């Protein structure tokens, strides 16, 4: 083996020295830069080879993989809805309202949510618009929308990050992992399947999972987005290609998570959306879905089942509780 390798090596050496020009152009193909009087980033590089790889990955696995992830998530949710239907309130509504999300939390949630939707729609336009929208909008119309989409995507990104950071701050404590409670919640599949009701605190394990997905993959998405947003940083093409792919993959993961989150928060669970709209949930809902949270509130004396007309306020929250 070694002998063969040695012979090949010697032959290769002889070959390259006998063909200095071939050696030179091989260097160029590998991206060795030369001198150029023209000013500009990477102007001295004659051939950049990574562009072809990026093209193949973007138009291939990212394009198809993303479609499978999003289509698959939607299909699973639809199937789940058909099989399980909405998770209904088991006890009738009491009419007693408990403050679950204060005004600041709700404003922050919807601020981030609206930006997320804008970013998703505009981002998907850049990857799938050519295949999906262009054929029926026509080139000129589609270009008009794509131009707007690019602009919206570029300015919504930094605003989204501006919303994500305070989210970490105000919901960090509620989302700390509590192995005993949270594993049990996952084992019982959150009560989504079957009739078991695993106990949960203010945030159940599913909500915590979504929170941490946003704070990790979502953070990666944000950072790569900023780098792509600002060509000012002077990153080379090879870095931008890699950053773009990371941005794409993390975007699909977060969008898939968001689809699940939207499903559970709206048609999937009776009485959940009203909490994020009006701030208050019904006592029956709180008892069914977040019993430990309710108990804790009661223990802290902020709420009494005996005097159950008392409204609960959450002064420990980041924002001032509303009246």
């Amino acid at each position, binding site marked *: 083996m070694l002998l063969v390798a040695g012979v090949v090596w010697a032959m290769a050496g002889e070959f390259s020295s006998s063909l200095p*020009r071939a050696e030179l152009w091989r260097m160029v193909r590998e991206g060795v830069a030369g*001198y150029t009087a023209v000013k500009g980033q990477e102007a001295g590089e004659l*051939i*950049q080879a990574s*562009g072809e790889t990026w093209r193949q990955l973007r138009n291939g696995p990212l394009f198809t993989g993303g479609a499978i992830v999003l289509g698959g998530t939607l299909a699973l949710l639809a199937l789940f809805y058909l099989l399980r239907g909405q998770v209904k309130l088991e006890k009738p509504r009491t009419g007693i309202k408990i403050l679950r999300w204060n005004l600041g939390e709700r404003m922050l949630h919807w601020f981030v949510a609206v930006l997320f939707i804008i970013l998703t729609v505009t981002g998907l336009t850049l990857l799938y*618009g*050519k295949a999906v929208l262009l054929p029926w909008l026509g080139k*000129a119309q589609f270009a008009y929308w794509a131009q707007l989409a*690019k602009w919206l995507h570029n300015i919504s990104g930094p605003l989204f990050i501006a919303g994500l950071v305070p989210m970490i701050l105000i919901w960090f404590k509620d989302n700390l992992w509590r192995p005993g409670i949270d594993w049990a919640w996952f084992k019982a599949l959150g009560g989504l399947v079957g009739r078991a009701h695993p106990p949960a605190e203010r945030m159940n394990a599913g909500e915590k999972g979504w929170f941490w997905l946003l704070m990790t993959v979502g953070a990666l998405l944000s950072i790569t987005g900023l780098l792509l947003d600002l060509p000012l940083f002077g990153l080379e093409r090879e870095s931008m290609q890699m950053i773009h792919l990371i941005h794409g993959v993390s975007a699909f993961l977060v969008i898939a998570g968001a689809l699940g989150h939207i499903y559970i928060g709206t048609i999937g669970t009776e009485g959940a959306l009203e909490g994020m709209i009006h701030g208050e949930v019904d006592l029956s809902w709180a008892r069914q879905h977040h019993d430990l949270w309710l108990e804790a509130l009661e223990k802290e004396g902020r709420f009494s089942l005996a005097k159950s007309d008392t409204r609960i306020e959450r002064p420990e929250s980041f924002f001032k509780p509303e009246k």
Partner: protein
Amino acid sequence: MARMKFLCDDERCIECNACVTACKNENEVPWGVNRRRVVTINDGQAGEKSISVACMHCTDPPCAAVCPVDCFYITEDGLVLHDKDICIGCGYCFYACPFGAPQFPQDGAFGVRGKMDKCTFCAGGPEEDNSEEEFKKYGRNRLAEGKLPLCAEMCSTKALLAGDGDIIADIFRDRVVRRADRDEKPATATAPWGWGKAYGDKSS
């Protein structure tokens, strides 16, 4: 129709940058944009080689493959041109292009890219041939006037050739044969620089 190609003979290019200047002048290219550049490998050392490079008008253009708005089109002459009314300045073509051809004038704050600009093989754009609008957006349409790109036309050593791919390949082949008689070992330069990448020429 002919399949138009560029060919740069590195044995002849003397790095005078006249092609770069000619291009800028003929097409009135905006500041900061260079459709063509000359790169010298091993500059200042014995055996240095120079290549003049611009858009090579590839057979399977990566720029067009990744363009999210499909602004590229390929002419009957095999030229890869683009429509600036469609372009959104995303920069994807610049990421994908092996030759660094797409250029972006800065448009507004934070380094936001304007509409892409690149070599048109002096063939203008989708507007009416030699209209004022076409000139403003893409520069001169010399092909419509029956002329070849100015960079190649005025190359003093005829290192840069532009035209029907078959004809310029023949010229190059003829040169290679003569050079083989003259000095170097044969078969070291049977295919022009960049042709394998741009046109999928297996012989290079």
